[in-house]
């Protein structure tokens, strides 16, 4: 087991290295930070050339890559083109995204597992049909449209009907403009809507997933054995069926958490939530490759790391998996 983990961890290093090369080449060839300056009549081509030299962009790509990688690994991520500290900004964005993503995943997990288990136990009941229809709806609704609907409902209609001075749940941002410090209630009122948008999708996926793996377990021999031993139905379901049915979901959750670091782009863009997704879209919009490069590396590292965690979890939880 220990050797398996070490082996997988060593295997992740070349993956990250290859990703860093790909990320660098793609970002440097697609994003031209000074493209916007060409149309400016006050900027001469010589000025642009001088700027390129200052940023070391006149050197061959592999030298640029090497210089960037060594600084990146040292944790010296420098300043962005707009003179913002890159490391600190990404750290803040990551923290905000983590709060949103993990809250949404946690809540969805609780609800999704509950729905999945119950509809598997009562297969083809009205509850099963109802939750299946809802899951289809959740999977088919475009999340950005759902977000817009929530914004319209809470931001416009509900405040109008109830004659409120401000919406119950805010439709944008992280905290009330002008407020300083951290207020839990205020923060939660900002988090509820983006979280709901994420949760609707995740609940739909997890409940289907849980239902499927629960059904598989319910028909297994060891469950018949457990019942034959005379265990209570509750114990059979919770201790014997659910625990085994949760194994595939666990790996899925680990993979999903890894994707959160770079994955909440749409939700964050709509709710103007200052997380990783908004950071990325803004950086791309400005053509700030000094922000895009480390951002992508952070996102890729999280995916690779949680892939690893998913594999290891699977090997630990399911002894039937051989990890030779």
């Amino acid at each position, binding site marked *: 087991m220990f050797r398996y983990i070490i082996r997988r961890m060593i295997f992740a290093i070349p993956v990250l290295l290859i990703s860093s090369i790909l990320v660098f080449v793609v970002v440097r060839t697609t994003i031209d930070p000074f493209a916007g300056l060409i149309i400016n009549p006050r900027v001469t081509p010589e000025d642009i050339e001088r700027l390129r030299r200052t940023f070391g962009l006149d050197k061959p790509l592999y030298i640029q890559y090497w210089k960037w990688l060594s600084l990146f690994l040292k944790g010296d991520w420098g300043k962005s083109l707009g003179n913002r500290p890159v490391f600190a900004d990404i750290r803040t964005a990551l923290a905000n995204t983590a709060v949103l993503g993990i809250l949404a995943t946690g809540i969805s997990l609780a609800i999704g597992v509950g729905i999945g288990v119950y509809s598997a136990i009562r297969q083809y009941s009205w509850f099963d049909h109802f939750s299946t229809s809802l899951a289809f709806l959740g999977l088919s609704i475009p999340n*950005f449209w759902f977000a817009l609907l929530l914004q319209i409902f809470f931001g416009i209609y509900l405040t109008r009907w109830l004659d409120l001075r401000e919406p119950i749940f805010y439709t944008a941002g992280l905290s009330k403009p002008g407020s300083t410090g951290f207020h839990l209630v205020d923060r939660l009122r900002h988090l509820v809507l983006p979280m709901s948008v994420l949760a609707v999708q995740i609940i739909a996926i997890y409940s289907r997933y849980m239902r499927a793996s629960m059904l598989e377990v319910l028909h297994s021999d060891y469950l018949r054995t457990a019942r034959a031993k005379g265990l209570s139905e509750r114990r059979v379901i919770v201790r014997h069926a659910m625990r085994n049915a949760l194994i595939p979901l666990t790996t899925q959750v680990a993979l999903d958490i890894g994707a959160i670091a770079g994955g909440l782009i749409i939700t964050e863009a709509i709710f103007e939530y200052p997380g990783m997704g908004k950071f990325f879209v803004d950086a791309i919009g400005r053509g700030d490759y000094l922000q895009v490069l480390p951002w992508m590396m952070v996102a890729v590292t999280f995916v690779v790391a949680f892939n690893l965690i998913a594999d290891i979890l699977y090997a630990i939880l399911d002894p039937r998996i051989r990890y030779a």
Partner: protein
Amino acid sequence: MRDEKRIERVPAATQALPVDTEGSPSPGTLATVMGADRALSTRQLAWRRFKRHKLAIASLVALLVLGLATVLAGLISPFNFHEQNLLETVRSPGAKHWFGTDQLGRDTFTRVLYGGRVSLTVGLTVALSAGVIGGVVGSLAGYYGGWIDNLLMRVTDLFLAIPFLVVLIIGSRFVEKLHFGGSVFHIVLILSLFFWMYDARIVRGVFLSLKEKEFVEAARSSGARNSRIIFYHMLPNAMGPIIVNTTLGVAAAILTESSLSFLGFGVQPPTPTWGNMLTNAKQFTRTAPWLVWFPGMAILITVLCVNFFGDGLRDAMDPHQKLGAKE
């Protein structure tokens, strides 16, 4: 251990057993086969199972109607999708403008129809090309195994590892630099490049299990070339999962295209798509909320119908894969 006799007998066996009936039918369908006067082909069995799904059939009909409406948009609607009418801006839905008009007086109903053209085209072509790429990669990996399998699957993993939308956004910037940015073709190109991995994984899985089947061994021992085994013997048997996955891929592609267009990285105005219509609508949530309702409803209904249809197809063509449909 293969003696002369067995090798001789094998071709006859493959002839007697048409490719279509391969794959083990579940107990229920076996009974149907045995009870019928003559054995039903896989296709007939699939159609029987599909007919049971009223919702899937209704969805198929709805999709056909929708597709026809978008194709005949010019005949159905008296308006043009880019025709501005500054005397009739921001009209709420009514007899003349069924879905209202936007800030430039353009008819929303017409724009939803033309937007549907883009969405359906993108959805279908992306899913099809992704199916082809994924089919080739998956069948090569599954059939040959060894280092080919390893290499192809690692590439697949790499494509899966990079956050999806990030790649698409960067990718759309990249194609823009090649000077055909913002067109429908460029969106199709980018989306297909990042949609094939799921097909590849599924096809590989099917090929891995088919590889061990007797009819493949029979074909091989009767001297069939690798390409013949892959395309004539194995691929037809893998078609069920491929078709199902391609159908569900249409839904995913439509959703992704509309999100990309919504974020401004997809098909650019003035070409209307459901996604970029919503980008525009975002500014008028207070004054013209109908601009939000209709394009979104169009996406929701289309994707829902595709998903229902795909689910019915899966039940009919690929009963073993059906999530949670175990009897």
